[in-house]
């Protein structure tokens, strides 16, 4: 076994362990931290494939931004993990059988000769930078999806605003003068409303 293969197995073992812990950890904070570990090791594996841009993007975007934000959310909310796990044992047999079938089938296909590319064929020739290539493709051939992705981000922003913004809050300072001079008719308003059915 050469050094590269050893590194690959090392990273893969950590990746599988981390992925398992994401779904088995009782504490959501641990689950989120293990997810970060999984992203790190995936980044490592991608680096070995010489996809340095993807590896860096994964770590910068997911570990650096998304997961940190996610950790904040998890820590702010009081998530009751036991309530989420209700019915876990009841659905386990069916889920396990289906999952096992899927794993077997996927193993058969993905483990086939077709995906076993010799390392020599899979390496990028010297002098080619894939960051540069991706950058050039994004603004030429892939400009349409690239622009549409920008529109998707805009929609995400609009959605976040529309779902959380509840109008400008007025400051809550009381003015003693108006409090003293208040009259009953300022406090109660009688409205005429059409009858509504619930």
């Amino acid at each position, binding site marked *: 076994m050469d050094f590269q293969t050893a590194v690959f197995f090392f990273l893969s073992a950590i990746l599988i362990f981390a992925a398992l812990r994401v779904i088995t950890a009782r504490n959501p904070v641990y689950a989120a931290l293990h997810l970060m570990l999984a992203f790190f090791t995936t980044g490592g594996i991608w680096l070995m494939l010489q996809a340095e841009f993807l590896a860096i993007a994964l770590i910068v975007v997911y570990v650096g931004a998304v997961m940190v934000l996610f950790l904040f959310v998890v820590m702010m909310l009081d998530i009751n993990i036991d309530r989420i796990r209700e019915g876990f044992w009841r659905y386990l047999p069916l889920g396990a059988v289906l999952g096992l079938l899927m794993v077997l*089938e*996927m193993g058969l*296909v993905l483990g*086939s000769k*077709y*995906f076993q590319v010799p390392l020599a064929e899979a390496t990028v020739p010297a002098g080619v930078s894939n960051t*540069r290539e991706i950058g*050039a493709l994004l603004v*030429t*051939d*892939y*400009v*349409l*999806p690239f622009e*549409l*992705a920008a*529109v*998707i981000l*805009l*929609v*995400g922003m*609009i*959605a976040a*605003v*529309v*779902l959380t913004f509840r109008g400008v809050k007025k400051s809550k300072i009381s003015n003693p003068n108006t409090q003293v001079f208040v009259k009953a008719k300022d406090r109660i308003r009688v409205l005429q409303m059409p009858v*509504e*059915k*619930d």
Partner: protein
Amino acid sequence: MFDNFVIPDFLPAAPEIFLATMAMAILMIDLFIKDSRRTVTFVLAQATLVACAAIQVFTSTGEITYTFSNMFVDDMMADLLKLFVYMTMVIVLFYSRAYLFERPNMNKGEYYVLALFATLGMLVMISANNFVTVYVGLELLSLSLYAMVAMNRDSLASTEAAMKYFVLGALASGMLLYGMSMIYGATGTLEITELAEALYNGENNRTVLVFGLVFLVSGLAFKLGVVPFHMWIPDVYHGAPTPVTLLIGSAPKLAAFALVMRLLVSGLITLAQDWQQMLIILSVLSMAVGNLAAIAQTNLKRMLAYSAISHMGFMLLGIVTGVVSGDARYALNAYSSAMFYVIAYVLMTTCGFGVILMMSKAGFEADNLDDYKGLNKRSPWFAGVMLIVMFSMAGVPPFIGFFAKFSVLQAVVASGQIWLAIVAVVFSLIGAFYYLRVVKLMYFDAPQDDSVIVAPNHIRILLSANGLAVAALGLAPQVIMSLCAYALLRSL
């Protein structure tokens, strides 16, 4: 590096570009409009859709044109489906207006902006010629819809529906992407036309292709809402505010049809034998579960959700009969019957939800079956419109729903799968029960509530026109049928 890059031809995508620009402009204009004058946003959104339709008609060449490095295709099928999308969206926004106006927490400019962005997503899906474009269009549509479902944020049912829709939608997108990446792995291309060529000529690894296909079909089935990937449909239809349900239940079905046509028919026709088998199972299951579960519903929106599942199952029958043992002789007939079916369904479903929206008023959703008791005594005309919709959905002649079912069944029989036609007819008969129950409630039961139905005149006129279209197009189904056949003939 950019030597052999040519600036793409923007003309085929002119409606999309115009729509995107206008949606962003309306978003800005809306900031300066008072809540009480939201009509301005509404009018701008409607004008945008009408202008898009005009641009679509004037820029249409009738030829198959590729642009944006073959990411985008404009053909007759795309033109026709897009015109129907604009029309449906105009109707949807008209129906929604009174409902939104009575509920100040929903009556925001973002509603119209998100609806326009959702339309943009549908247009991109319809014209996609590359897996990446397909996915981006789909996400644009879905993301806008997730937000719209949750817009009534103080309602527990709405937020729960939005959450379910979001999680399951993300799962479906994941499956679709995984399938796409496997097919890319087997053929080395993401472009749909190139993919068809690669499959036709080359020696590809069949196992990997079929493996990818399974995930691709599962993802598509999620988006179409067919059994066993239908779980989200009843909850989302029920929980979403009714105008959003109307939106989800209408125009996106046209886009989903286009998606199936582009991915499976244009791209993977060589694998037709494999995906037809999968779709037959999905189709039969959908008709069974959809029609049987709809009987048990007491909520009209939920009932229409199960009805949507069964209708999508029926529509798939048209897709699965295109290629019979390697022979594509009946393909045009079969695919155009499916296209006719989906257009007819969208027309019926807008009308059905239009009645629900007209019946609701501030603080009251007319979504229970009991609310329709004795509708005939309260408003004979709109009871008549609902009667047309229900008869049409059940497949009673001479309404458009009958001819839609008839043409699909004809395609099924022509392909020699008689048993499939029999199954479809039997489940349609079972389905007729719950449609006719609505008619019985409207005509033979005493009303629970004698209040007069108030609706603005333009809604009354539009709803009547919609109902009459369902009836009149049933008398002359050739109009749309031949349009579909012609569009597909020029596109495939």
